[in-house]
């Protein structure tokens, strides 16, 4: 998209949403509220990707991040906290160290090359089509991503199985045994 007034306005709107929600996500006390703020932040990012002509990434952001990861996070919040949970504040020392570290990183990153402003968009560029992505992912040559793609598939599968195994309920019999002996694992 050409850099017009419209895109500029949209960009700054999205940036404001991303940064505002991002700040909320790390500062709000209530865990569910910060998960919702993270959702807003991810939505803003998806909008930004649409602005940058990466439709597929934007939709994947919504599909996997918001529809999957954030829902999982909210699910975990629902399972582990409830209204009335007291949220202990972090110590001042942690706050100071957090702010300092964040500032240092921000300074470093912004310091690297503040002058490298590629405002010009390559006039011949075309948006990446889903066909191109598919062909590249299944391309076995040196330019392709076949092996990483397969590895990531196996990783996902093993992660899913692992997660299911970890979160699986213990057998009721086992719990009862421990109760009767009075020993709780510590």
């Amino acid at each position, binding site marked *: *998209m050409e850099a017009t*007034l*419209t895109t500029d306005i949209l960009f700054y709107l999205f940036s404001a949403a991303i940064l505002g929600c991002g700040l909320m996500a790390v500062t709000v006390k*209530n865990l*569910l*509220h910060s998960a*919702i703020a993270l*959702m807003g932040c991810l939505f803003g990012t998806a909008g930004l990707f*649409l602005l940058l*002509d990466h*439709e*597929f990434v934007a*939709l*994947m952001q*919504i*599909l996997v991040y*918001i*529809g*999957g990861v*954030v*829902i999982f996070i*909210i*699910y975990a*919040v*629902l*399972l582990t906290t*409830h*209204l*009335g949970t007291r949220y202990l504040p972090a110590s001042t020392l942690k706050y100071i160290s957090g702010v300092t570290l964040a500032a240092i990183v921000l300074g470093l990153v912004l310091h690297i090359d503040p002058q490298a402003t590629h405002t010009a968009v390559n006039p011949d560029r*075309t*948006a990446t*089509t*889903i066909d191109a992505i598919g062909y590249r992912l299944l391309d076995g040559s040196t330019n392709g991503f076949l092996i990483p793609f397969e590895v990531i598939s196996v990783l996902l599968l093993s992660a899913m199985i692992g997660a299911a195994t970890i979160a699986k309920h213990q057998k009721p019999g086992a719990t009862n045994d421990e109760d009767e002996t009075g020993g709780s694992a510590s």
Partner: protein
Amino acid sequence: MDTSTHQPVQQSVAERLDPHTATTPLGDWVRELCDAPDGGNLLSMTINVIIIIIAICAFSSLTAMVLVWMERKLAGRFQRRLGPTRTGPFGLLQTAADGLKLFLKEGFRPNASDPFTYYLAPLLPLTGAFMVLAVIPFGPSMWIADPELGLIFISAIAGLGVLALLIGSWGSNNKYSLMGGLRAGAQAISYEVSLILCFLLIVLASGETNLLNIVEGQQGNFWNWWIIKLPGAGFIAFIFFIITSTAELNRTPFDTTEAESELTGGFHTEYSGIAFSMFFLAEYVHMFIAAAIGATLFLGGYNAPFEFLPDGWWWLMAKSYAIIFLYIWFRWTFPRLRIDQLMALEWKFLLPLSLINLVFAGILIAMGWIL
């Protein structure tokens, strides 16, 4: 609704997402008024977008009204009674009266609930519904946005509906609500897998993710629709789509999330007045959307069943309402499944069979055994 004559789409994504490039009589008139006949400026674009938003709002509230009336009438017929008859002709104004009642009701919030999440939750489902409505091709020149990845867009947005239930159920601070919300989360995430596999089958068959192109690919007589064109596989996938979409819509026999005899209303136990009517409205708009997507993918969308008949939005409406009739029929016939049976149905039955069906369809396509 913003419309535009459809050319074989090879515009860039940005161009197609840009409402000011679409040409319609109404849009052109707005542009002329704003002194921008070619391409449009910020003012005309804003006005056009507002027109689109109003059109979607009006359409979805009208749809919800008609669907609620239809459900009540059909439920009456299924149950050997008449359904609403008093308010307006054939009881048509019953929904309006109900809506009015809900809007005038006191918005009541439990004291111990969490205001932010409690009030945020009712707003979300309709937002998602509006976003999906924008990409459904209602007719050959009748759509709002036509993204290249329409089908992925739909599956992405459809997954968000459950967020509202999760948030609202937690914010209500009620054990029944929370149970309903947790059930909703588990159910939606599980059934989405099968739903996306159904979508994938269409992508595999048509080689398209763009909804307009999928519909255009089914032109001609009714045996060109994917439900028949893919012998066997299309029909199985359609049945799976109906089952999974019923589950995604939280309707009987999969309405464990609001199961009134167990959870006294589930996630919306603590909602009343406008907040409740938002959930209610969204439920019916979602029902229309699911039916419209089913019609678009499997039943040829706005295409007429025979070549000599004119195509148009009325065909999409007729097909959608036929599917909606199925949903209503299910609801007033079947009892409710238990939550563990529901999950077993998905993971032990629907998911493996969808995968097998997908492979089967792949073989059909690879061998060219398509009607």
